[in-house]
Every structure is written in structure tokens, then in C-alpha cells.
């Protein structure tokens, strides 16, 4: 065993010890939620129906509609043999009535949503501050289909920023060291909420529209000493987000501002190249920037979408590949600590322990990076990290139930995922040894192909050109401009010909 692995295990066990000291179920809201989650883990079909039901619930207005939907989703004969899920559900909610059900699901959502509005959220943030846990606030929004919505969203962000700055005046850094790298006020923004017409084929247009919407927010953040993070969404938006980040923060006004951050998703095969690209850009720029490393929240979406379109899948197929890559990228981040401030967004104790051990090995002080975890998840791990003297920041979504549903369903999927760490630890009680294994050893050499390969689809129909790929776009552009040139010149020639 390598020294690093030994250290990782030592750290991991320590975290588990601290976690076990304050026993708290993974899903702290007892009762309804816990039972549903337990059922979902046992029965994939139930889980699918449940999550679909949760997804539609906020758009139902009458109680009768809710009960009708409940019936339609769960009384399907197919569930009969599967222990009669309809019956089971009725047992959990014997008083089935629309209002109660909605109330329960809202409760579920409230577990992951830190507040309905900026006023609401302050109470949570204060509590966390007392526990030495920082925050980054994310505004939940509905799918943005128009510029009116996008503008409204941008305005809400600006309000939120003002409010947070006002309410947190005088808050001190939890570690009291290197605090200049970690402003108290931290906002996470999603570019898809700020422009409704993002086309992967046209990054220049997206950037041209997004930059003017972001500048006022960034300017104000800078004045208020706040931090802005660009969250990462699906692969189709990835290159645009990276481009936008580099473009804006190379502008004269923001060139020397260190409090901007972006995200790299370790489940992407491109992630190492993208990270190295950012580091190189950062060095040329000459000012620190921040980077949140995560595994990525859209795994199911990306695999389905690329299979549907017959595209090569941008994400790894094996969970341990993502874990191993997360660790490899952790190293890249630490090796470039002189230009990039790292944050690690994970609930996986192995990933966290690895980060700690590697930081020590490379001599990076624990006050110079932070762990970030999601609101409503893995509370005991957060507490353990604080106790060990690490920086912890919580990602706090704010918003109403309706726009929050997509977010809620993503969290539910994550918590019940077969591959997930939290399920393995808290629902299946795997041993510490099992949980702390070196991910590289778990990668199966023959598992490189997708579960149901895109090539099947590709044989049936020609895939769409993947405009999110720079290469495809460049090829299209070349052909179009060559043709344009020949048309313009021949039309011009014709015109002059006619005149003479």
C-alpha cells in the first residue's frame, strides 16, 4: 500500500468516526421521505414513477387532480406483482389527500431548498455561520424560454447580492486565515438562466448576450467584496461557459479581480484538457481565480442524450473512472495552487480524504482550499470536516417549489443512485474499508463501452452534427464562409457586368 493510500484510509476512518459520533440518518427528515427513499432503492420501477410524480406535482392545482395523478401513476397493473405498490403507498399515506401529499412533497423539497426567498434563506445562513459553515447561494429558476424571464432572473440575482452583502456585514472568516481568498458572500449563477437563446452552434452569440447581463452583477459583486461562481450545466453548455468565463475575466475591468470561479466536472472525458486550459489561461491573465471540482450532476441526462443521438458519450461509463479522475484533477489543482484556489464539491468520504491527504503531501495549508457540500445532504460529514479544521461551504438553493422540482429530482436520483457514495454508506452500511478503496483498482478494463452503446443508434440513423463540438462548428463555418465568399464575389461580378 502506498503512503498516500495509508494516509487516505487514516483520514477516512477519522471522518467516519466523527460522523458516527453524531448519528443522524442520511435523510434527516424522518417518516414520509425516508420511507419513499427506502422503497425507491428497492424497486427501480417504483422509483421512476415516484420521480415522475414528484416532477409533475407542482403544476397540479386542485387536490382532486393530485389524487387522480397519484392513481394514474401507481395503480398500474404492472405494479401488482411487485408487491402492490399502490397498496404500499396507501399504507404510507393512509389519509391520501391531495393537500397532504403536496405538503409532504414540499417537505421533501424543503429538505434540499434552503429558503423560498432571500429573506427566508438568511435564517438558515445565520445558523450555519454559527456552525462555521459558509455558503454559496443559487437562485432556482424555471426553464428560461424568453428574454423577459432571463432579465427578471438577472435582476433577482442583483437583489440577492445586495441583500446578502447587507445582512452579512461584519461576519468573520471561520478560520481567520487566508480569508482574502474566500469572501463571505458567494453566489452561484447558471448561464442558461440568463439567456434563453443559447445555441451550441453559436457560442459567440451566447457570449455577446450573456456578457452584458453579467457585467453589472460582477461589477457590483466586486464593489461589495463578494464572490461569483459560474456553475456548470449540461455538456451542450460547457464550452460556452468556459469561453464566457475566459472572455469576461480577461476584460480590462475584471482582469485583476480574483473572486471569480468556475466548475470542472470530473465525469467528463474532456475535463483534464479543460482544466489545463483554464490554468494556462489563468497564468497568462496573471490573477488568481477559483475552481470548484465536482463529478457532475447530469450523468443520466448525458448518457441518454448521447445514446439517443448516436453521439460519443462525453462522460465516463464507470463510476470509479469518475472518482479516479476526480483525484487526478485534485492533483492538477494543487500543483497549480499558486494561480487557482480550489474547492471540492463532493460528499464522498474517499474523495474528501484523498484531497486532505494529498494537500498534506504537497504542503498545502488547509485554509487555502475548501470543501463544498449541498444543503440538506450529508450534514454529519460537514460537521466532521469543521471539527477537523477544514473550510466548509454549503451550496444553498433558494426558490419556490415549482422551479425547485428539477433540482429536487436530481438530488433524489443522487441519493438513491446505485452507484452513489451516500447510498452505499448510509443506506447499505458498507464497511469503511470498502468505501475507502482506491478507485483506480475498481475500474474494470472491459467496462469501457456504454451499457447500451450509441453505435446501435448510429447504425439506424445518421447522428446530428454535434454543434457543441468546436471541430464540427469550425467545419460548418469553413464551408459556409467559402460559399459565401464565392457567392458574394460572383454576384458582385455579375452586377458590375450588368452595368458595363
Amino acid at each position: 500500500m502506498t503512503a498516500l493510500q495509508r494516509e487516505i484510509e487514516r483520514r477516512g476512518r477519522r471522518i467516519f468516526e466523527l460522523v458516527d459520533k453524531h448519528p443522524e440518518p442520511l435523510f434527516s427528515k424522518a417518516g414520509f421521505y425516508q420511507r419513499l427513499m427506502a422503497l425507491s432503492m428497492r424497486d427501480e420501477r417504483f422509483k421512476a414513477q415516484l420521480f415522475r410524480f414528484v416532477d409533475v406535482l407542482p403544476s397540479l392545482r386542485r387536490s382532486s387532480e393530485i389524487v387522480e395523478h397519484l392513481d394514474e401513476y401507481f395503480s398500474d397493473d404492472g405494479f401488482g406483482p411487485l408487491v402492490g405498490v399502490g397498496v404500499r403507498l396507501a399504507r404510507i399515506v393512509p389519509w391520501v389527500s391531495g393537500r397532504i401529499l403536496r405538503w409532504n412533497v414540499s417537505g421533501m423539497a424543503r429538505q434540499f431548498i434552503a429558503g423560498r426567498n432571500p429573506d427566508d434563506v438568511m435564517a438558515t445562513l445565520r445558523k450555519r455561520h454559527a456552525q462555521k459553515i459558509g455558503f454559496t447561494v443559487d437562485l432556482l429558476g424555471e426553464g428560461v424560454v424568453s428574454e423577459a424571464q432571463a432579465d427578471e432572473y438577472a435582476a433577482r440575482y442583483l437583489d440577492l447580492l445586495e441583500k446578502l452583502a447587507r445582512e452579512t456585514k461584519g461576519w468573520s472568516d471561520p478560520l481567520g486565515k487566508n480569508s482574502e481568498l474566500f469572501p463571505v458572500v458567494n453566489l452561484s449563477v447558471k448561464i442558461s438562466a440568463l439567456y434563453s437563446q443559447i445555441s451550441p452552434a453559436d457560442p459567440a452569440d451566447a457570449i455577446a448576450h450573456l456578457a452584458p447581463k453579467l457585467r453589472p452583477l460582477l461589477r457590483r459583486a466586486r464593489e461589495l467584496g463578494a464572490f461569483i461562481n459560474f456553475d456548470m450545466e449540461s455538456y451542450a453548455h460547457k464550452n460556452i461557459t468556459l469561453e464566457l468565463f475566459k472572455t469576461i475575466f480577461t476584460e480590462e475591468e475584471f482582469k485583476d479581480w480574483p473572486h471569480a470561479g468556475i466548475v470542472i466536472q470530473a465525469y467528463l472525458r474532456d475535463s483534464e484538457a479543460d482544466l489545463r486550459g483554464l490554468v494556462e489561461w489563468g497564468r497568462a491573465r496573471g490573477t488568481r481565480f477559483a475552481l470548484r471540482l465536482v463529478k457532475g450532476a447530469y450523468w443520466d441526462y448525458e448518457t441518454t442524450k448521447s445514446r439517443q443521438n448516436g453521439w460519443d458519450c462525453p462522460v465516463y461509463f464507470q463510476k470509479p473512472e469518475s472518482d479516479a479522475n476526480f483525484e487526478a484533477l485534485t492533483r492538477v489543482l494543487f500543483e497549480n495552487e499558486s494561480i487557482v484556489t480550489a474547492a471540492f464539491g463532493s460528499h464522498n468520504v474517499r474523495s474528501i480524504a484523498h484531497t486532505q491527504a494529498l494537500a498534506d503531501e504537497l504542503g498545502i495549508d488547509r485554509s487555502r482550499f475548501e470543501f463544498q457540500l449541498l444543503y440538506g445532504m450529508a450534514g454529519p460529514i460537514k460537521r466532521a470536516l469543521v471539527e477537523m479544521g477544514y473550510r466548509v461551504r454549503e451550496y444553498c438553493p433558494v426558490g419556490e417549489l415549482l422551479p425547485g422540482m428539477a433540482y429536487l429530482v436530481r438530488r433524489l436520483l443522487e441519493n438513491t443512485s446505485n452507484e452513489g457514495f451516500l447510498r452505499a454508506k448510509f443506506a447499505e452500511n458498507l464497511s469503511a474499508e470498502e468505501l475507502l478503496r482506491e478507485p483506480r483498482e475498481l475500474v474494470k478494463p472491459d467496462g469501457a463501452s456504454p451499457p447500451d452503446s450509441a453505435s446501435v443508434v448510429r447504425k439506424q440513423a445518421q447522428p446530428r452534427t454535434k454543434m457543441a463540438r468546436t471541430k464540427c462548428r469550425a467545419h460548418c463555418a469553413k464551408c459556409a464562409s467559402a460559399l459565401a465568399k464565392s457567392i458574394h464575389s460572383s454576384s458582385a461580378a455579375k452586377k458590375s457586368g450588368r452595368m458595363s
Partner: protein
Amino acid sequence: MNPSAPDEIVGYGSEAGIPEAEHVVKAARAAFGKWSLTPFEERACLLERAADILERRRFELSAVEVFEVGKPWNEADADIREAIDFCRFYAQQMRRLGPPKLTQQVPGEESYHHYWPRGVAFVIAPWNFPMAILCGMASAAVVTGNTVIMKPSEQSIICGAMLMQVFEEAGVPPGVLNFLSGRGSVIGVHLVDHKDVDLIAFTGSREVGLRIWQSAGVTRPGQRQLKHVICEMGGKNAMIVDADADLGEAIGYSIYSAFGYQGQKCSALSRLILLEENYDRVMERLIPAAASLRVGNPEEPGIMVGPVIDEAAYRRILDYIEIGKKEATLAYQAKEVPPHGYFIPPTIFTDVKPNMRIAREEIFGPVLSVLKVRDLDEALEVANGTYYALTRGLFSHSPDNIERVKAQLEAGNVYINRSCTGAIVGRHPFGGFKMSGGGTKAGGEDYLLQFLIPRVVTENTSRLGLVPEETPEYRDEFLWPKHQ
């Protein structure tokens, strides 16, 4: 001519007259004998070679579409992709249909069912999918052993000519596929009536389709057989938004279905049917969503709404907008569109009633009518209440409502919780019924049968009661002289 900039010439095409039309009919007739006796495997391979060439030239060809017919990039790409898919799919289907198949196993007799081509096919294609539809109809006719006269639309001659080039490079023998550009009113009419044309494959407007249907029914002196007509015509497509629909999704897809390629797809959405209950909530978001669309020259990569095809279309659509203003309420019209070129601002009408012209007639432009209904019963009635039946669909998260609508919507293609455009060959065989077409389903398993005549060959194989053991299920093609 570039519809985004009408003073730009994209290329020159020639206009054939009656003598040229006569010439190609002769050529097609002359080539038929040999081509019909070419093994289907060779014909299938020809299509696959064409597909490979299309794939190689994919970006170049889609660039031409951007300029000749004003397609946004992704739409142009989709058109070439569809052309490729047609070639490969029909090649594969021909291999399935090619070998003569034993009808029943009976001692002492063998009976094989197989197909012959019909003869000379006349393919008349529209400009809105300048490669895909032309290629789909022509490749189906070619692979089934017919010889073909291929007439691209007057508005997309260059795309048509490039497709011809592709087939020539793929090695199509002389006379098998004949390119003929010219006016529908001259050569189109002449060839539809021609005694030596056996099959007409048409995709276009209802008006022209019905005329073809009629004249093809008249027997001309010297005509050998009944003319077979494949007609794919328009639509007045509708989507219903249920009370529990995910509005972000419903609006996103509706906007794309209605305004993608300026509404110039046969499958495009033109009637959005909203339940009273969520009418206000949908409208509140629909209009700003339409207002956010990028209208402009499709040379720019992310443009979604470009120009309509030509001046005639431009005027016709503007006339419909005037009619709409009189009949209903203009709820939205984009303010800024490029001043030159045939740009029509995306337009939405509300207070539309099912009997109004804008709710019944195909406009083929970026105009969406919104109809308000009481409940799902009325929604279905309104959706089904036009003489077209091409694409229709529903946004809903109620399993029961989804089941019901799946069973009751009158449309060749029913779409649930997705856009009603963008059919993929083989996956979503495309085509409608009622006045939208004859149910022929391009890109479907039955399509090639339209180009074929079934034939049965029966032989008494018993000699003095001695019979071969068992007759094979399939046999070699009937070809004479036998191919090596």
C-alpha cells in the same frame, strides 16, 4: 437566389421545356429494361455509395442549403442527415423485399411472391427539404428498379443538381436517374399526363397534389398501365397543452415546432390548443418566448428564424397575416426583422376559432394560431377538426390523458411531450392521411411497396407423384439472362 439577400445569386439553373422532357422520358424508358433486371443487391449498393458520398460532403452540402433555401445551420445539417438515412434505410429495406418468398409450403407445388418495378417514375419534390425529400423519393424509386425523372423544385435547383452529382459519382447508370429542372406548370403537367410515365411520387401542396391525382386517373392513348400516385401533401398541425403540462418544455417545443425554419415544414405546428385552465399561464410565457427568438440571416450559425423562400411565399404569408388580423386578435408580431430579404416576423394570433381561415388553411410560414378550449374533449375535437391529418400531439403528464390522446388523435404522426417536427428515417416513418396524403409513410417499412408491383410465380413440381422434399422459403431473384 439567396432568400436572405435576393440580389445575391447562388447559382444558375436551366429551365427545361417540352422537348427536353420528351428526351428524358425516352432515356428513362430505354434504360428501364436493363435496370429492372439488375440484381437488387447492386441497386442497394448504389444507394449506400451515394450515402457515403453525402456523408463525406455533408458540411459542404448543408452550406449550400443555407444560401439557396435559407435554412438555419442545424436544419440544413438535419436535411443532409435525412438524405443519408433514406439511402441507407431503403437499401436495407430492398434487401428485405428483394428475395422471392414462398407463400405456403405445399407438396408438389411451389409458389413464390416477389416484386417487379413499375416502370418510369416521375419524382416531384418541394424546396423545403431540398435534399432529403428529393433524395428519399428518388432513391426509393431507383432502388426498387424503376428508372426515374427527378424534378427538384424551381426554388432549389442547385441542391437538386448536387444530389444528381452525388448519384453520378456513386455510379448510377445512364438513363436510370434523370435530372430535369423546369416549371411545374410546363414540364410537370406534361409528364404527369405522359403515357410513358407509370408512377408519380409527389410531395408538395394539397392543391397540386389533388390535380395530379386527378389527371393521373385519365388514361392516355398508348398508356400501358394504371398510373400509381404517391402524394404527400400539407398539414394543419396541432399541439394540445394539458393542464398539468410542464410549461417550460411545452413552450420550448411549441416555439421550435412553429417557428423552426420559419414554419415552412409540412410537419410544422400551426395551431396551439390551450385548455381554459392554463390559458393565461401559457400565454404569459409564450409571447415573451416568441419575442426572444433570433430572427436573421441564417448564415449566422445560431439563427433560428430566417427568410421565407421567395417573394410569392412572402406575399402569400403576409396576406394570411392580414386575414388573421381581421378574423382574430394579433397577440404578437416581432418588430424587428432584417429589412432586405424575405423575412416575415414571427406572428401569434389569439381568439382564433376553429372555423376561421387561419385555423383551417395551411399557411406555411411563421404564423401560430392559439385556440382556447374548455377541456380535453373539446381539444381533441378541435385538433381533429381539419381536413388534414399529418402531425398532432400533446403535452401532458397525466398517463390517462396521454393514453386517450394516443388513441384518438387523427394524424399520421402523433407526438407526445416533444416537438412535432424532426422525424427521423426508420424511427418515425413520416406521412399523413385525410388530405395530407395517401398514408405512404416515407422512411417506413411499407414505403418501397409503393414503387413495386407484386407478382406470384407458381410451378407444379410434382412428376408422377415424386416431389422435392421441402421448398426453400426464399429463392434467387427471377432474372433473365442470369447475372453472373
